C-alpha cells in the first residue's frame, strides 16, 4: 500500500480540525469522536506487539523517564531533609525525626496559614466556578455573536500575564490613600472607607479577588468547551422544545452533564489556589502581621530567610500531601479515560 504524502495527510487533518470546537471535541474528554474517526477495521485489528526495541525505548521513554526520576527523586529528598536537622547556612543531614513537623504544629503561624489556605481553596474556587458557568451560559444565549469573541478576549488576556504584573497593578489600585479605586470613588463623591489589603481581617479576601479576576477567563473557556458536545446540545434542544425555562435547563440539564468538565476545572483551580505564592508575595508579603500568610510563602521564608531548611522541607511535604489528596479523584478519572 502506498501511503499518502504527508502534506496530503496534513491537509486532511487540517480540514477535519479546522474549527476549534471540532478540535476540542477531538481532544476533549467527551471525545467519543476519537473512535468515530478511526475506522472500525483498524480498531478491530490486533495491535502490533506492545514491546519496544531498545532504540525505541531510548528515544521515546528515556527522556521522559529521566525527568520523572529527577522529579520524584527530589520529592523523596525533600522528605528526607524534613526529617533531618538542617537549620543554618550549611547543610546538615543528621536525623532528627519528626521534630520539625511537631514544631510546626505547635506554631500559631502554621495554623493561621492553614486557615488562609482554606479561605483560598474555598473562596478562590467556588465563586470562580459559578461565575464561569453563568458567563459561559450567557455567552451561549448571547443574542449577538460578536459579543462572544469580544468577551472571550477581554476576560482571557490576564491568563497571558503573570501574577507579579497583576499584583503590581492591583496593589496600586488597592492603596487606601492614593490608590486608583479610592481616588475614583472619591471623585464620584463617595467617601470610601475601604482599606483593602491593609485591613488584617479582610486582606485575604481582596487578594482572592485578584485571583478570581485573573482566572475567570480560563474557567469560562473550559466550561464553554464542555457545553459544546453534541449530546448536550441535543438534550438542551429537546428541553427547549418541551418549553423548559432557561434557568431550569441550566440547573437540571447542563450542570449535571458537564460534571467531568467541572471536575477538571475544580481540580485545576484547587491546585492553583493551594500553590498561591506570587500574589501574596508581591501585594502584602503576608502582612499585615501574618494575616495573609500562606503555606507556600511561609515555606519560602523559612527556607531562604530563616535558614530553617528542614522546617521549610516539612512545609513542602505538607503542601505536597494536600495537593496529592486534591488530585487523586482527578488522576483516577484521567487514567480511566486514557486507557479505556
Amino acid at each position: 500500500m502506498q501511503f499518502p504524502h504527508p502534506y496530503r495527510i496534513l491537509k486532511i487533518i487540517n480540514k477535519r480540525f479546522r474549527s476549534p470546537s471540532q478540535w476540542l471535541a477531538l481532544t476533549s474528554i467527551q471525545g467519543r469522536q476519537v473512535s468515530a474517526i478511526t475506522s472500525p477495521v483498524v480498531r478491530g485489528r490486533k495491535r502490533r506487539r506492545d514491546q519496544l526495541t531498545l532504540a525505541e525505548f531510548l528515544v521515546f521513554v528515556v527522556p521522559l523517564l529521566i525527568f520523572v526520576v529527577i522529579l520524584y527523586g527530589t520529592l523523596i529528598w525533600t522528605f528526607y531533609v524534613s526529617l533531618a536537622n538542617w537549620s543554618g547556612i550549611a547543610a546538615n543531614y543528621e536525623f532528627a525525626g519528626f521534630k520539625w513537623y511537631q514544631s510546626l504544629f505547635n506554631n500559631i503561624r502554621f495554623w493561621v496559614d492553614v486557615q488562609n489556605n482554606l479561605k483560598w481553596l474555598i473562596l478562590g474556587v467556588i465563586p470562580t466556578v459559578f461565575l464561569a458557568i453563568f458567563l459561559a451560559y450567557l455567552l451561549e444565549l448571547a443574542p449577538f455573536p460578536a459579543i462572544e469573541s469580544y468577551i472571550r478576549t477581554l476576560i482571557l488576556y490576564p491568563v497571558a500575564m503573570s501574577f507579579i504584573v497583576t499584583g503590581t497593578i492591583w496593589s496600586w489600585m488597592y492603596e487606601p490613600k492614593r490608590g486608583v479605586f479610592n481616588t475614583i470613588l472619591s471623585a464620584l463623591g463617595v467617601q470610601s472607607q475601604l482599606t483593602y489589603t491593609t485591613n488584617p481581617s479582610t486582606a485575604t479576601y481582596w487578594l482572592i479577588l485578584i485571583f478570581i479576576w485573573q482566572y475567570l477567563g480560563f474557567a469560562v473557556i473550559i466550561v464553554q468547551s464542555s457545553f459544546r458536545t453534541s449530546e448536550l446540545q441535543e438534550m438542551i434542544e429537546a428541553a427547549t422544545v418541551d418549553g423548559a425555562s432557561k434557568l431550569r435547563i441550566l440547573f437540571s440539564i447542563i450542570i449535571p452533564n458537564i460534571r467531568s468538565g467541572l471536575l477538571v476545572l475544580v481540580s485545576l483551580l484547587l491546585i492553583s489556589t493551594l500553590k498561591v505564592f506570587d500574589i501574596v508575595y508581591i501585594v502584602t508579603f503576608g502582612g499585615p502581621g501574618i494575616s495573609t500568610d500562606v503555606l507556600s510563602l511561609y515555606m519560602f521564608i523559612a527556607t531562604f530567610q530563616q535558614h530553617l531548611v528542614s522546617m521549610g522541607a516539612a512545609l513542602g511535604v505538607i503542601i505536597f500531601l494536600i495537593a496529592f489528596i486534591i488530585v487523586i479523584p482527578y488522576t483516577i478519572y484521567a487514567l480511566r479515560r486514557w486507557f479505556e
Partner: protein
Amino acid sequence: MKKIFALLSALMIFSMILSACAPQTVVQTVVVTEVVTQEVVVEGTPQVKEVVKTVVVEATPEPKKPQLIIFNWWTAPGEREAADAMYEAFKAKYPDVEIIENPTPGGGGVNQRVVLQARMTAGLPPDTFQTLGGAELKAYVDAGQLEPLDDLWAQLDYANKIPGPLAKAVTVDGHPYVVPLNMHIQNILYYNKALFDELQLTPPTNYDELVATCEAIKAAKPDLACIGLGSKEKWGDAFVFDAVFMEEAGPADYVKFYKGELDPATFEPFKRSLEKFQALAPYINTDHAGLTWDQATALLPGGTAAMTLMGTWAIGALEKGGGWKAGMDFGAVTFPQKPERILLFHPDTYGLAKGAPNPETTLKWLEVVASPELQIPTDVIQGGLFARTDIDPTEFPDPIRQELMQYVRDNPDKLILDQHGSIAPSSFTSEYWNVIASFLVQPDVNATIQQVASLFQQFNVKDASAWYQWP
C-alpha cells in the same frame, strides 16, 4: 517533508544556540580560568558561540590580571552611588585590580544569601561579601564560610580605631571575622521641621512626650498621621516597639531580654511596653501594612505624616527621594533619650570568604575598607556613621550625623546591637517581627507575650546568643 525537517532542525539549532551561548562559555571558561567564569557571561547579550570562544582564547595568554569578586546588595538609589564610591577608593590605591561585583538586589540581602549559599555549596565562593554584624555574621561563621582576621586587625590596630561595642559585634569566640565600614543607627525620630515650628513643638525625647506631641498634632491637623510607619517588611513595627521597650526596660535588661535570659511572661516592662505600643496605634498611618520603609519615609515630604522612626539610612531617602534638606526641612533626634541615650546600631561589613580565589587581593581590599579614604565618601553617601571614631565628624554634610558621630566619639559604650544585626539569631528575629507586626494590627497582650516566650524556647535563643557581650 524535507522542508519541515529542515525547518525543525533549524529551529532546534537556533534554540540550542540561544540557550547554549551563555552557559557553554561558562563551562569553557571554568576550565580555563576558574574565576572569570560566571561574570563574563553575566550581562549576556546572546552572542554567537564563536565570538565568545575567541574572547576566551584572547584572554588566556595574557598575564592574569588581579581580580576581586565582591557580593553586595547595595543596588537601591543612594546605595548604588555608595558602592561606586567604595570601588573608587579601592581603585585609587590599586588601579590594576579588576573588580567583579555581583550585586544582588533585595534589602537586607535576603536574595544575596540564597545566591551566596548556592555558590558556596558549588565550591565557587566569592572573595568577599557584604554582611551585617551580630547574629547574621555568626551564622556565616558557624557555617565555616569566613576566615578569622586576627592578623589584619592587629596590623591595623582596628580594635582601637572603632567603638568597643562595634568590635564586639563582629567578634565571635575572640576572633574578629570582618571589617566594619559603617554603623547604622536604628532609633532616630525624624520630624517635619516647618510643622513643629508652626505648632511650636519640641521634638519628643521619651514616650510621654511623644504622646503629648501627637495629641497636639492631632488637634491641629486631624488629617495628618503623627507617626509615619511602613510595616510591609515587618521590621518597621519592631523599630517603634524597640524604642518604647528600651525606655521601659533600660539598656541592660534590653540586652538580657534579647539574649533570652529573661522570661517575657514575668518580665513586667515587656508587658507595659506592649500596652504602650498599642496605645500609639491611633497616631500611626492606617495604611502602614502596605508600605515599605522608604514609602513610609516619603510620607514626611509628602505632607501626610509628621514624624517617622527610622534608621540613619532615611536621611538619604529624605534628601534624595523627598528633596528635603537635613536640619532645614527636617530634624532628627535619638529616641528615646531616657533613661539613657542609647544608640541601637548595626554595621555593614566585609570579610574574607573561606576558599576565596584571590585572598591577597582581598586582604588589600579589607585594608582599604578599614581606611578613612573609603569610609568617608562611602558613608557620607550611603547614610551611616563612620566605623572609625578618629574621622572628623564634620566630614558629614548634615548636622544630624555630625552630632551623632560626636556623641559616639564621646560615649562609645552607648551602642547596642539593633534589630537588623540582631542579638538573637535571625530565625528568631524574623519570627519575632511577625509577632510584633501582628500585635499592632490585632492587639492581644497576653497572647503576644506567650508567643514571644515560645519563640525564645523554640529557637533556643539563650544558647544561640550567649556569644554577645554587652557592655
